[in-house]
């Protein structure tokens, strides 16, 4: 239950108390927690997330890097992967949702439903390794390691991140598709849809022209919510595919107890998550202004 002491961890059990104390002083760990917090928060507002603990050693050599410099190149990689997954997942789940609503209770609907229910229950790394087994190991179509660097060109980058993007897609499509289907089916019971049906409109016309425009609000909310979920899912997937993203950096930092890096990564993940949830709420209100006036 002891809080992690980085000084003790890096200098080893045998280190003299004076050495540890000096090391702690150098890192600023001797100050009280609240002062360090305000220092960090003040710096974070100005874009300075502090200096990484790692890169220092007992001999006094200092090769530590700024947290911002560590995160910045990786953030772009993570955003690239997340947006690639979103670009595949969002249209796919919309089309599947509309199709299953159109042909509901058919064999197609039931099989898609069962498939999505199973992918929801699977851990991300299980999905990832199954994909690796089939598409990278048995049939060598895609690489199993998504190692990209700044020099990788765009096409190569897409090719290498294909499997991680597919994994993320499979994980989030299920939820989005089910919500789309539920939102449309919910609307099909309303009187104006009955009216359209009585006026002789075809099923396709009813769903695309009458139901869908009113279903956008819940669908948009769910999409934004799932994109926020992508932020978390990306951590595990990055580790599986050894993809140089923020998630991988954060997990490594947690293992070495490099608190400034952990803080920086967590800040970025939390901000993205909160922003996307905020966007979801805003879309909900814009498409349905009645939400502005609670009863």
């Amino acid at each position, binding site marked *: 239950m002891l809080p992690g002491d980085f000084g003790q961890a890096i200098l080893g059990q045998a280190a003299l108390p004076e050495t540890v104390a000096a090391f702690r002083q150098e890192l600023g760990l001797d100050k009280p927690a609240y002062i360090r917090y305000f220092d960090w928060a003040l710096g974070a507002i100005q874009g300075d997330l502090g200096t990484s603990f790692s890169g220092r050693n007992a001999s006094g050599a200092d090769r530590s890097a700024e947290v911002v410099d560590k995160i910045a190149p990786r953030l772009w990689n993570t955003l690239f992967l997340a947006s690639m997954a979103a670009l595949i997942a969002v249209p796919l789940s919309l089309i599947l949702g509309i199709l299953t609503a159109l042909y509901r209770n058919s064999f197609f609907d039931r099989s898609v439903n069962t498939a999505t229910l199973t992918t929801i229950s699977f*851990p991300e790394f299980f999905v990832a*390794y199954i994909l690796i087994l089939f598409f990278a190991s048995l049939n060598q179509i895609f690489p199993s390691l998504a190692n990209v660097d700044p020099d990788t060109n765009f096409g190569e980058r897409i090719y290498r991140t294909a499997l991680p993007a597919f994994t993320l897609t499979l994980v989030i499509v299920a939820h989005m598709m089910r919500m789309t289907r539920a939102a449309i089916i919910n609307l099909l019971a309303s009187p104006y849809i009955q009216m359209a049906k009585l006026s002789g409109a075809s099923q396709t016309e009813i769903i695309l022209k009458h139901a869908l425009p009113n279903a956008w609000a819940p669908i948009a909310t769910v999409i934004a919510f799932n994109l926020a979920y992508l932020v978390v899912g990306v951590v*595990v997937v990055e580790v599986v595919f050894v993809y140089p993203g923020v998630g991988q950096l954060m*997990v490594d930092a947690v293992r070495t*107890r490099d608190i400034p890096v952990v803080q920086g990564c967590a800040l970025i993940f939390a901000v993205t998550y909160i922003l996307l949830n905020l966007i979801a709420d805003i879309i909900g209100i814009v498409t349905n202004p009645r939400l502005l006036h609670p009863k």
Partner: protein
Amino acid sequence: MNKDTKTYSAAGEVGSILETRSTFTRLKIELTKAPLTAKFGIFIIIVFVGLAIFAPLIAPYGEAEVFPEPYAPWSSNHIFGTDQIGRDIFSRLIFGARNTVGVAFATTILAFLIGGALGLAAAINRSYLDLFLSRTVDVLMAIPQLIFALVLLSIFGSTIINLIIIIAVLDSTRVFRLTRAVSLNVVVMDYVEVAKLRGENISWVMRKEILPNILPPLIAEFGLRFCFVFLSIAALSFLGVGIQPPTADWGSMVRENASLIQFAQYDLKAAMTPLLPAAAIALLTVAVNFVVDWFLHKTSGIKDEK
């Protein structure tokens, strides 16, 4: 009792009604009526619990017993081969049931104790306490759970106790919200008011008046929460910051043996090895989901949409 079905007799009808069913018979009837998916789920859960309880008796070798040959292929000696330092995979899978499922179960129970008690208290005492707890929960839920857990683990260190407490506290926020929401409807009932007027203290009102009436949704939530806790612990262990070696755990087993997947073309069986613990995790999650679905169906009468 009149067994003759052709003639009607009131005594016969009353007689058959008077036959009271024991809890066991009723359970048996419910189970035979349960859909196939629920039966499958219950079967899987019983198997896993059995494995967890009798692990040392079932497993052919010890949890951390090391054999000379690392990465041994599947054979009669080692059913699923051995891992990177020569431990028997099959035995570790069985012990993993005990460790992974046990830790997830303990975490879920702790989450329900914290979230349930605070949720009930907030619903009864709807003043500053409710306001304070609800806003705290809002803040905790604003940060993605896995990220929050990673931060806390890096501060406190990855021991099993820390893992259980951290995940339980983070997960109790959801339990708190549900408990508070469902008990708000019960708190306003007359019999709760009567109990308060009678002078019962808050703990009595919580346990004897409100809790029995909000139990069904809480039990269903327990199943779902267990799945989420189980998956997040598996994810953390997979990332190497959850349950630490040499304790056998399904999440870290996947990671340790992941490189075997590259040899699928030469030895498909060996390549399947890292997938086994992952499949065990998925199987249990699916099974619990099936049972929860059936239970929700039974208690709330929710029917599928037309």
